[in-house]
């Protein structure tokens, strides 16, 4: 049995080990965003699928519960006034998928779904599996999107009787040298995940057959590019930022130590507004998760999401990884 993975885990930084033991400050946010039980996997590029006829229809939005789980009330209001709440649904006899919002910037197209179980089978599935697989492809020619383009962010645990299960699905525009063209129509076809939460096979009852949704073209979020003195770039949109700052790889223990001390692996951020006010990741609704981002096949950047919408026109600078990124 493979046990070298224990050695990898043994490489954890001391600050995280202190944190795990409950020592020092541990950040707690009131509204936590979680990774979903099953990340939504895209089929391999070779497996281009023919779309089956799904019951796709535009329905009147009945609620914004899903969106409220991921954004604060001011952001939800802004999204509503700017037509970013979708209300597009696809359903079969077991499930109704309601795509509640679509927002996009240069790096991410983000959709929030509320999934309603319509029968006992669907409830059982949600409780035991709590996730879906999906194929994503361009609707105009069925070309599959690349692996890793999709990341899903999860929700509260589903219990039988709950009205819906909400999750956010992010499509990343860049992964290494592979790009997703957000100007083309993108179609999602959901499928049953093969395994349940205990990683045991779940009976395949085709519960998701016909659940297909085209992502509507969305208004792009306002954005701004900021620059550090050493020429690095930070892309800031209303719901997050992408720092085009590589995570350096140390070539020796001494270099690694130096990089830690320099704060190269510190992911805290600070936003300074033109009126002098400051928001940091420790402020409520500012921090909603972050992910490493492949900028090209060797370089890694970082994407930070907010739980609120920031007025980028009022931002003077963003400080991240020991650099202050300012307007040119």
């Amino acid at each position, binding site marked *: 049995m*493979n046990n070298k*993975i224990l050695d990898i*885990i*043994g490489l954890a930084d001391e600050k*995280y080990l202190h*944190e795990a033991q409950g020592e020092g400050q541990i950040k707690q946010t009131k509204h936590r965003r979680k990774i979903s039980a099953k990340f939504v996997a895209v089929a391999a590029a070779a497996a281009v699928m023919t779309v089956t006829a799904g019951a796709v229809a535009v329905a009147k939005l009945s609620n914004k519960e899903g969106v409220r789980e991921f954004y604060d009330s001011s952001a939800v209001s802004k999204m509503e006034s700017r037509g970013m709440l979708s209300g597009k649904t696809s359903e079969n006899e077991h499930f109704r998928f309601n795509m509640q919002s679509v927002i996009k910037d240069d790096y991410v197209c983000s959709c929030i779904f509320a999934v309603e179980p319509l029968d006992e089978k669907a409830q059982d599935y949600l409780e035991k599996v709590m996730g879906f697989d999906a194929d994503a492809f361009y609707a105009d020619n069925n070309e599959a999107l690349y692996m890793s383009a999709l990341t899903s962010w999860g929700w509260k645990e589903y219990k039988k009787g709950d009205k819906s299960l909400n999750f956010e699905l992010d499509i990343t525009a860049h992964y290494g040298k592979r790009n997703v063209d957000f100007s083309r129509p993108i179609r999602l076809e959901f499928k049953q995940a093969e395994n349940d939460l205990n*990683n045991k096979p779940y009976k395949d009852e085709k519960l998701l057959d016909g659940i297909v949704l085209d992502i509507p073209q969305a208004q792009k979020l306002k954005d701004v590019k900021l620059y550090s003195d050493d020429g690095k770039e930070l892309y800031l949109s209303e719901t997050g930022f992408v720092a085009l700052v590589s*995570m350096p790889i140390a070539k020796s223990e001494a270099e690694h130590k130096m990089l830690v001390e320099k704060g190269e*692996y510190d992911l805290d951020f600070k936003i300074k507004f033109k009126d002098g006010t400051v928001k940091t990741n420790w402020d409520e609704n500012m921090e909603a998760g972050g992910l490493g981002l492949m900028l090209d096949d060797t370089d890694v950047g970082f994407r930070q999401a907010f739980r609120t919408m920031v007025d980028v026109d009022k931002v003077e600078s963003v400080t991240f990884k020991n650099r202050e990124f300012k307007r040119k």
Partner: protein
Amino acid sequence: MSNDELIALLEVKDKNALVELENKYGGYCKSIAMNILRSREDTQECLNDVYLSVWNSIPPGKPEDLKMYIAEITRNTAINLWRRKHAQKRGSGHIELLLEELSDEAASESALEKLDDTLALREAFNSFLGSLKPEQRRIFLLRYWYMHTVREIAQKLEISQSKVKVSLHRTRVKLKKLLEREGLL
């Protein structure tokens, strides 16, 4: 006794250092080793090796964070001891269970054989840890670094066991993505 004073004793090879080390960190090291080995006898054997390692490594080493330095030595020593014992008698103990959890989701033996750059991996792994939410990170490290049981973690963090399991599952999925990105899968 402060850590600086303890290190000073080790540097001049004063045997009182070992007594002070045991007084200060003996219980902590014991809990780490016990979580891994689940045997009083093996734990004691492990701790003897830990104290010897600390004695031999300081100087020339001068750790900034003595507690974590000893914790890492304890974990590595305990895992090595477990590997030795495991080679002698194959069982279905809790480490096997933990490895089964990880091998399902995380990495293959052949892929891990490719690893020859520990520093690059350290950076990538810590970047991965940094991308987790604090609670998710705590649960992951309590399970796979400190090797607590799911029940112990649930009690420590005052959350349900199912929440711990779900969180671990999600983190393993993310870890799998990291290893894929690093070309290790």
